[in-house]
Structure formats: structure tokens, C-alpha cells
């Protein structure tokens, strides 16, 4: 009978908390969206599954050794943890507080105490530490994105960089929105949180995760989920804004064919970009450095094997770990919060403002160049989200004029948006990091 009782006490049903049930439901919802609605499945499948695993009661997959020891250990374990952190009382909350704010030395001592008691880091916690806390996974993904990016359309029409710049206004407007909500007392975001939320408007998953891991690790789960869900929603969010801001005549403008770009130019461009980053904004160097490296591997033509690995095998491996690590941050105490709602709301506003600013900038540039050379529809592609945003521009262009293929023209602002959001990320890290 006692054994039966022990089994019951160790079961998930006995231990599950309402928050965990809700979070498992959220994980299932993400899986549903990914599998049946095809929403960024490459990321939402691992994120959703990781989220479910992180919320399995008593398994402690997403917790560190010390957190597991606190949760599962007996009084002696708590006592040894407390003494390792220099506390008198063995109150779990006090220990947790002390652990989170301890010096590196006390931190290590507490980890050893937990290890001695037989508790280890959860698997997802280890993934998170290696993949995201170290910054490695988002940067490797950025390298892969660089290896997949063709800068030809951008080099043929460098002015489209301005569209990529204008669309970043969404990021900064959202920062203002987040601090505004805090000022009104509706939410509680620090300036770091606000910056990390704003970067959702960059429509660039790896950049958003990288910035969030540096500025607001607590909000990372919500920010990553918002960023990737909205990227999947680009074909729904953007067209109404684009139609509202352009006239039918503007949408029909067809653009002259892009000039041919020599190989030398393509090889030199990542180096020029890297030099500019090195001179002006070293804080963006991790992101743009890896991006340029990936692109150089692609264009130089002598390391096809490396380029192939970066854009296929490696990016797939990293995506698995990145997704599971993000999922580990979907724990009930951090995600089930009014702030998550705020993040989802601000994220979509960021997207909308970014799209609108890109289109408006394209209209201004078109007016300045005589009114018949730039189709304002390509402006919306400035919000990165490669290549989805460019496809949306192309689709709307074809609707207005069935002979009007804007895809290559929209790829210019699209990759400019990637550079723009990485620069914006660097500025944020520099100013508030």
C-alpha cells in the first residue's frame, strides 16, 4: 500500500500545477499551428515540443541543478544549499533569491552542493545554457542566413538600403510603446525589456533571440514565440497596410530590370560591410560579423563545402537546439503573465509600424525620383522576414498588374532589412545593455 502511495505521489497527475497544465496546452497550440496551419514549422515544432517537455511536473527538464534540488530535495539538502550560499535559514524562497543574486563563487558553491546531493541540470536547461545563454545558436543561424543571402539585388540598387532603414522605425516606436505602457502603469517593463520587445518589429528571429538573451532573458520565451508567429503571419498582417497606403497607380509601377552584378562586387560586399561595422558599431559585430562570414563563404566560390554545411546541415542542427531551448523558457511562472499579452500586442504593432514606414519611405523615394521608378510595394519588404515579405510585395504587385514582377526588386530592401535590424540590435545593446 505504501509503495502504491509513493507511486501516486511521484506521478504527474498528483504533482501537476494549473500553470503547467495551461503551458502544456500552449505547447500543444503551438504544435497545432505549426503542423496543421504551417506556421514557421521549422521553429514552432521544436519550440512547442520543448515547451511541453519543460512543463512536465517533477521532471525538472528546464531547471538548473540548484532549482531541482530546491524543489525535490529534503531538509538536509536545503540546509547544505543555504550554508553554501551563506544563509542561516533553509527557506527555499530565500535560497532561490540568494542563488539568483549571488556572486560567481557562491553560485558555483551552490551548484556543487546540489550536485553532491545528487541533483543535476535538466536536459533543456543544458541546451539553453549552451545554445542561447552563450549566444552561439542565434549567431550560427545568422551565419547560415548569410550563406543563403544573395546581395545581388541590393548591390544593383543600393538605395533600397533606405527602405530597410525606414522599416526599423517599427522597432523603436515599439520601444516607446512599451515604456509608455509602463509609464501608464499598465505593465512593468524596464528599458532593457522594452528594447528586447521592440526588436520583434525587426521580423528577424535570430536577432530577436540574441537581443532578448542579452537584455531580457526572462522574456525570451514570449519574445521568440511572438517573433516567429508574426513572421508566419506576414502574408496576413502586411497586405492591408500596404493597400491602405498606396494608390492603384502606384501599385502598377513596374521597375526597370536590375543591372548585372559582377562576382568581384559580391565577394567584396561582405568585407566592406564588415569594415563599416568594425569602424562604427562594434556591438553589432557578433551578428553582422557572422552574417558577413556566411555570405563570404557563399560568394567566394572556393569553400562551397563550408557554405553548403552552413546553409543546410549546420543551420538545421542549430535550429533543433534553438527551438528546444526557447521552449524551455515557456515555464508557467514566466509566461503566464499579463506582460506576455503586452509583448504579443506590442509585437504586432511593431510589425505594422515597420511595414507602414517602409511603404511611406518608398513613396517618398518614388516622388523624389520623378514618380515612376520605384513601386512603393517593395517598401514593406524592408522589415526583413526573408523571403516572405518580398513574396508579399511580389504578390500585391501581380494583383495590380499581372506583368509586374517585383520579387527581385523587393529582395533588395528585404536583405537591407536584415542588415538594418542587426544594426538596430547593436545600437540597443550598446545603449541599454
Amino acid at each position, binding site marked *: 500500500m505504501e509503495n502504491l502511495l509513493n507511486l501516486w505521489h511521484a506521478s504527474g497527475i498528483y504533482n501537476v500545477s494549473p500553470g503547467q497544465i495551461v503551458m502544456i496546452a500552449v505547447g500543444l497550440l503551438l504544435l497545432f499551428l505549426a503542423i496543421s496551419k504551417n506556421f514557421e514549422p521549422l521553429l514552432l515544432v521544436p519550440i512547442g515540443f520543448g515547451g511541453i517537455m519543460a512543463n512536465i511536473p517533477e521532471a525538472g527538464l528546464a531547471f538548473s541543478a540548484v532549482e531541482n534540488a530546491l524543489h525535490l530535495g529534503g531538509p538536509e539538502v536545503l540546509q547544505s544549499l543555504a550554508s553554501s550560499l551563506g544563509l542561516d535559514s533553509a527557506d527555499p524562497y530565500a535560497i532561490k533569491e540568494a542563488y539568483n543574486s549571488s556572486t560567481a563563487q557562491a553560485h558555483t558553491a551552490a551548484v556543487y552542493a546540489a550536485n553532491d546531493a545528487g541533483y543535476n541540470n535538466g536536459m533543456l536547461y543544458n541546451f539553453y545554457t549552451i545554445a542561447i545563454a552563450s549566444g552561439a545558436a542565434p549567431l550560427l543561424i545568422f551565419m547560415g542566413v548569410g550563406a543563403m543571402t544573395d546581395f545581388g539585388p541590393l548591390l544593383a540598387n*543600393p538605395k533600397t538600403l533606405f527602405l530597410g532603414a525606414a522599416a526599423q522605425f517599427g522597432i523603436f516606436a515599439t520601444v516607446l510603446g512599451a515604456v509608455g505602457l509602463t509609464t501608464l502603469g499598465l505593465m512593468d517593463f524596464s528599458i532593457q525589456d522594452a528594447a528586447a520587445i521592440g526588436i520583434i518589429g525587426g521580423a528577424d528571429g535570430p536577432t530577436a533571440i540574441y537581443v532578448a538573451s542579452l537584455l531580457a532573458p526572462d522574456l525570451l520565451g514570449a519574445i521568440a514565440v511572438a517573433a516567429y508567429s508574426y513572421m508566419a503571419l506576414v502574408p496576413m498582417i502586411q497586405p492591408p497596410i500596404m493597400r491602405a497606403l498606396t494608390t492603384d497607380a502606384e501599385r502598377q509601377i513596374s521597375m526597370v530590370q536590375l543591372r548585372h552584378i559582377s562576382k568581384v562586387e559580391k565577394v567584396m560586399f561582405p568585407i566592406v560591410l564588415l569594415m563599416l561595422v568594425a569602424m562604427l558599431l562594434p556591438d553589432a559585430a557578433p551578428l553582422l560579423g557572422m552574417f558577413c562570414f556566411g555570405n563570404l563563404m557563399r560568394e567566394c566560390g572556393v569553400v562551397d563545402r563550408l557554405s553548403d554545411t552552413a546553409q543546410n546541415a549546420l543551420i538545421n542542427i542549430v535550429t533543433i537546439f534553438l527551438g528546444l531551448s526557447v521552449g524551455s523558457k515557456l515555464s508557467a511562472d514566466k509566461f503566464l503573465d499579463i506582460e506576455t499579452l503586452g509583448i504579443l500586442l506590442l509585437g504586432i504593432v511593431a510589425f505594422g509600424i515597420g511595414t507602414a514606414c517602409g511603404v511611406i519611405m518608398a513613396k517618398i523615394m518614388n516622388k523624389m525620383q520623378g514618380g515612376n521608378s520605384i513601386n512603393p510595394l517593395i517598401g514593406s519588404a524592408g522589415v526583413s522576414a526573408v523571403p516572405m515579405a518580398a513574396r508579399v510585395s511580389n504578390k500585391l504587385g501581380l494583383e495590380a498588374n499581372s506583368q509586374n514582377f517585383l520579387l527581385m526588386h523587393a529582395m533588395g530592401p528585404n536583405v537591407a532589412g536584415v542588415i538594418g535590424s542587426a544594426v538596430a540590435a547593436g*545600437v540597443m545593446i550598446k545603449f541599454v545593455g
Partner: protein
Amino acid sequence: MDNLMSEGLSLMVFGMGFVFVFLTLLVFATGFMSKVIAKVVPEAPPQPARPAAPAAAPAPAGGDELIAVMTAAVHQYRKN
């Protein structure tokens, strides 16, 4: 709280300003790079096509000439 708002405002102004300055410089740097490359490696794209054809022609021509010379030399040698 007002402090936070002004922090947000300054982040917006500086951030947006910097993004524009950076990308404007990149526009100039890219344009400059393209011009320099166009001068240093003139008409790079059509070249591989055009010189490839003429270059392909002289090569066999040179080979023919060489063969002719060698045949002549061999004949000369055999005659002797």
C-alpha cells in the same frame, strides 16, 4: 517613470538616427566599391564570355602552329 519615458525617447532618436547614418554610409560605400571595381576590373561580367571565346580560339591555333612546326622539324630530321 518620466525618466523611463525619456530614456525610451532618446533610444528611439539615437537608434533610428544611427540606423539611418549607418545604412546611408553603406549606400555610399557600396556605390564607391562598385565604381572602383568597375574601373579596376572593367566590364567583368561580359569578359568571361568574350575573352573565353577568343582565348579558346588562339589556344588550338597555337597548338596547330606548334604541330606544324614540329611536323616540319620531324620531316627535316627524317630527310637528313
